Each structure stands twice: as C-alpha cells, then as structure tokens.
C-alpha cells in the first residue's frame, strides 16, 4: 500500500513539473520550432496618469512595432505589486523582451531579476534600478546634471536671494533625489536663498496644487517654487493663480512636457529641464531588437543629457524634445 502511495505521489509530481515546463515554453518555440507569430515586446510603464509617461510608452510601443514586433503597454500605476503582476504576465505570456520604466529604484529590482531568470531581457528607460547586473541596459535621463543647470538659472533669476518652496516627486524614485540633489548642489551655496518648505507631491499635478495651497497658508510670502517634474509645476502654477500670486512667484519644472513648454512660451513658467522621452524610448526598442538579433555588448547605464529650456531659448524646443528632432 505504502509503495502504491509512493508511486502515486511521484506520478503527481512528474505531471505537475511537466505542466509547469509546458507553461514556461514560449509560443514561438512550441511545435516545429518555426515562429508562428510575431515576437512580443512588453512595455511596462510606471504610470500612464502623466502625459510624459504616455509619450514614453507610446513611442516605445510604436518603435517596437516598426521593428516588426507585437508590442503591448502595461500600466503599473506607480505600484510595485501591479508591476510585479505585469512581469509575471509577461513571463507567462511568452514575451521576448521588456522595455521597462520602473516604479521604484530598489523595489523593482526583483521584477527585473525574475525576468532575467526566465531569460527575458529587460531594458530600463528613464528611471533607474539600483543594480547594474540584472537589466541588459538602462537608458536614463541625467537628472542630476540637468538640475545643476536649473539650479544655476534659478540662482540667476532669483538674484541670489529669496524664499522658495521645493516640491519633491515620489520618494522611492532615484529621479526625485537626483533632481533635488542636483538643484541643491548649486542653490545651497547661496545663504540668502531660503527654502521655506520641502514636501512631496509624488509627481502628481493635483497633489502639487493641494500641497502648495497648504504651504502658502503657512508661508504666503515666497518668490519661487522648484518642482521635480512638470506635472507638479503645472499644479503649483494653478495653486498660485488661485492665490493671486502667479505674477509674483516664479515656477521651475522638469521634464519638457507639452503644457509646460506652452507655458514657458506664454511667460507663465520660468524654465524646465528637457528630457527626451521619445529619444530614450526609441533607443530602448532599438537596443531590444539588437539584443534579440544577437548583440550583447551593451553599456549598463547610458545617461541622456537634460537640456535647460527657458524663455530665452524656447524656440529651439517643442514638447518632449528639440525642434530639430522632427
């Protein structure tokens, strides 16, 4: 009897393993080994609740499709648990590569590792993960240096003195701190520039408006607001309009999003740091294609320079890039 039970358990184990193994196989490898459909690329984006990331995701998807892949966008909604589900689905769904905009520099590492262990290469875009051996490559905005430039321009526009507020992005995102530290590496050298409040608005326009409204109640006399992204800059501007201070308080953003570029044109926002989401997304899709075709020598991190956009040089720029990119 015991022997029968033993054999039964072994049979169940073998069947289970067989089922798992079948699930792991990618559709294009099933059967006679010839591809039966287009290879699939997943575009996993931290959030689609911000136009900048929509441009990033759509460009990556479009470029992957131009290169002959079937591409699907997954929205992580800034939630690492959702992101983890997307990675599980891409692994189970037979995707060939992942173009990935992480939600969390540390929290997203496990997801990329999971994909690597399933032999699916991951290409990070814009946001970084704090690891240099799980993704194939990471194409990143050089946020720190971009904010050093914004900091220098800020000091100039403020004439080295005044009171200002800083709105931070998501606290777990390296971009938040690279931007903030780049800015402060300049501004903190001027003792007459006083930061009266520093709060997170999580890269969100509505939160930025609410946070600044609250800050203005305690600190009605400010001269400038430095925002870690353009969505927050627009939210801050709205709060200043509502408080009747839009003409007196200078707003600085970061991203190069359409509404801020338009606002710089109109003289409402002072400056932003132009990131290049289309350029980064195209690069990631092209590198994934090269990887699939056999290339392996990718630099682990590729910083993409951020350019200062002001009312003086706005004519060189359009939303999400340079005029010359078109």
């Amino acid at each position, binding site marked *: 009897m*015991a022997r029968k039970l033993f054999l039964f358990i072994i049979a169940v184990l073998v069947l289970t393993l067989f089922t798992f193994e079948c699930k792991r196989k990618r559709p294009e490898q099933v059967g006679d080994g010839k591809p039966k459909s287009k290879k699939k690329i997943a575009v996993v984006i931290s959030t689609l609740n911000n136009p900048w990331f929509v441009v990033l995701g759509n460009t990556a998807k479009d470029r992957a499709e131009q290169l002959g892949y079937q591409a699907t966008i997954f929205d992580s909604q800034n939630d690492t648990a959702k992101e983890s589900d997307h990675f599980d689905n891409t692994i189970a769904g037979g995707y060939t590569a992942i173009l990935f905009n992480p939600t969390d520099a540390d929290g997203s590492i496990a997801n990329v590792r999971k994909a690597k262990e399933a032999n699916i290469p991951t290409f990070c875009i814009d946001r970084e993960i704090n*690891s*240099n051996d799980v993704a194939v490559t990471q194409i990143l905005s050089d946020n*720190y240096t971009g904010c050093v430039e914004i900091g220098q321009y800020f000091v100039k526009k403020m004439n080295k003195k005044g009171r200002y507020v800083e709105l931070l992005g998501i606290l777990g995102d390296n971009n938040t701190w690279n931007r903030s530290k780049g800015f402060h590496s300049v501004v903190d050298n001027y003792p007459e520039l006083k930061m009266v409040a520093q709060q997170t608005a999580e890269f969100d326009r509505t939160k930025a408006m609410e946070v600044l409204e609250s800050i203005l109640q305690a600190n009605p006399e400010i001269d400038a607001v430095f925002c870690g992204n353009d969505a927050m800059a627009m939210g801050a501007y709205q709060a200043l309009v509502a408080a009747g201070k839009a003409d007196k308080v200078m707003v600085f953003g970061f991203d190069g999003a359409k509404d801020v570029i338009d606002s710089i044109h109109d003289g409402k926002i002072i400056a932003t740091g132009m990131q290049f989401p289309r350029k980064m997304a195209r*690069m990631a899709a092209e590198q994934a294609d090269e990887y699939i075709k056999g290339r392996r020598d990718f630099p682990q991190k590729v910083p993409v320079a951020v350019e200062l956009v002001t009312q003086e040089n706005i004519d060189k720029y359009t939303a999400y890039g340079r005029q010359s990119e078109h």
Partner: protein
Amino acid sequence: MKKACKYAIAAVIIAFLVYYSVYFENLEDIKEQRRKETFSAAEYARDFWDNQLFSVLDKAVDVQKLIELFNTDMNEAIKKYGKAPGVSRVFAYLIKGNGTILTIAEDFLEVSIREPQTNPDIKITTGLYIPGNAVRDASGLVDVSDFSDTMKFNEISSEINKIVVKEVIRPFLDKKPQAGNTIRFFGATQVSQDATGAKEYQLVDVVPIRLELE
C-alpha cells in the same frame, strides 16, 4: 498506510521547523547592500585625484588649438578630444595652456591666451563652489556603468569639485594674483556642440586642475 501518514506528519513538522529556522536571501542583494554601505564618494574622489587623474594630464589638448577647432570643425573637436558619459550635446575636454590674467572677478579670472592680449579667451573658475562634471567627465576615467545607482556617480563629481576648490583654487588665491600676471594651467571644460562658429566659443569656462603663477 498508517506508517505513511506518520512519515507525512513528521515531514510536515520538519519542513515547518526548517522553514521557520532558516531564511534565504539573494546573494546579489547582500553584495549590493555591502557595496552600498561601504561606498564613499569622498574616498573615491581622493583616489581619483591622487592616483588616477595626473596620469591622463599628458592627454590634455592645448586650449588655443581646441578653441580654433571649435570654430572651424566642431565634429572633429568632439571626435578627437570630446568625452561624454552617455548621449549628450555637451562634451568635456581636458585642456592645458598659459596666458595673461586680464581681470579678476568674484568667481573667475578672465584670461587671454593669445596675442594681442586685449580680449579674454577663457574664464577660469575661482569661485568657492563648482557645479557640474567637467573634471570627472573630461578625465574619461569614471564609468557610470560601474555604479549601481547614478547618485554615487554624481557624488563623485561633487567631491572632486570640492578638492579643486580646496587644493587648487584656494592656494592659488592665497598667492594674490593680479591682472597682468601670467599663469599656467591644466583644466577641464564642457562645451555644447550646437553653435559651431559662434562667438560663445571665444570664451570657454575652465575648471582648473593645476593653476600656477609663472
């Protein structure tokens, strides 16, 4: 059957005990954590300055030659001498030269490097803080891919700039330089590729690496 049940219960108990007595961590995560805990940008910058940077100074290009090349063939200047850690329109250059101080401002010296020495060609930073990555990037010695997060890469630049202030600029200012003095220098500069032939290349900002009165 009874025996099998006993074994199964024993196995479950053992599995339970083992599960709660031992935990597993990814080795890579532990290594990464250790790297994070032990990294010091200040120490890295110190080693860079003391042991690495001076070995590449012999590759510095004469600043007069470089400015001429900016104004005649920017692409050639970038190809031969420019360095950038990634995708950029701004390139860093390791330079050397000598010239005459024309004016001494709060944060910089205006220096003429060619005859007649009436117009400034370069601005040498002498402020007590230096932003940017000119020295780190111009050296070509620090690779961003070596760092698990780019903040470390940026902190290195900040620490290098502090060394420049403390060990190059302050000692130089202590010698009380005057307009009309001649100087000799090695330095780094960052220049955008955009305006080939424009006047902006007539006045290049230089972060000094060595700065001496002649």
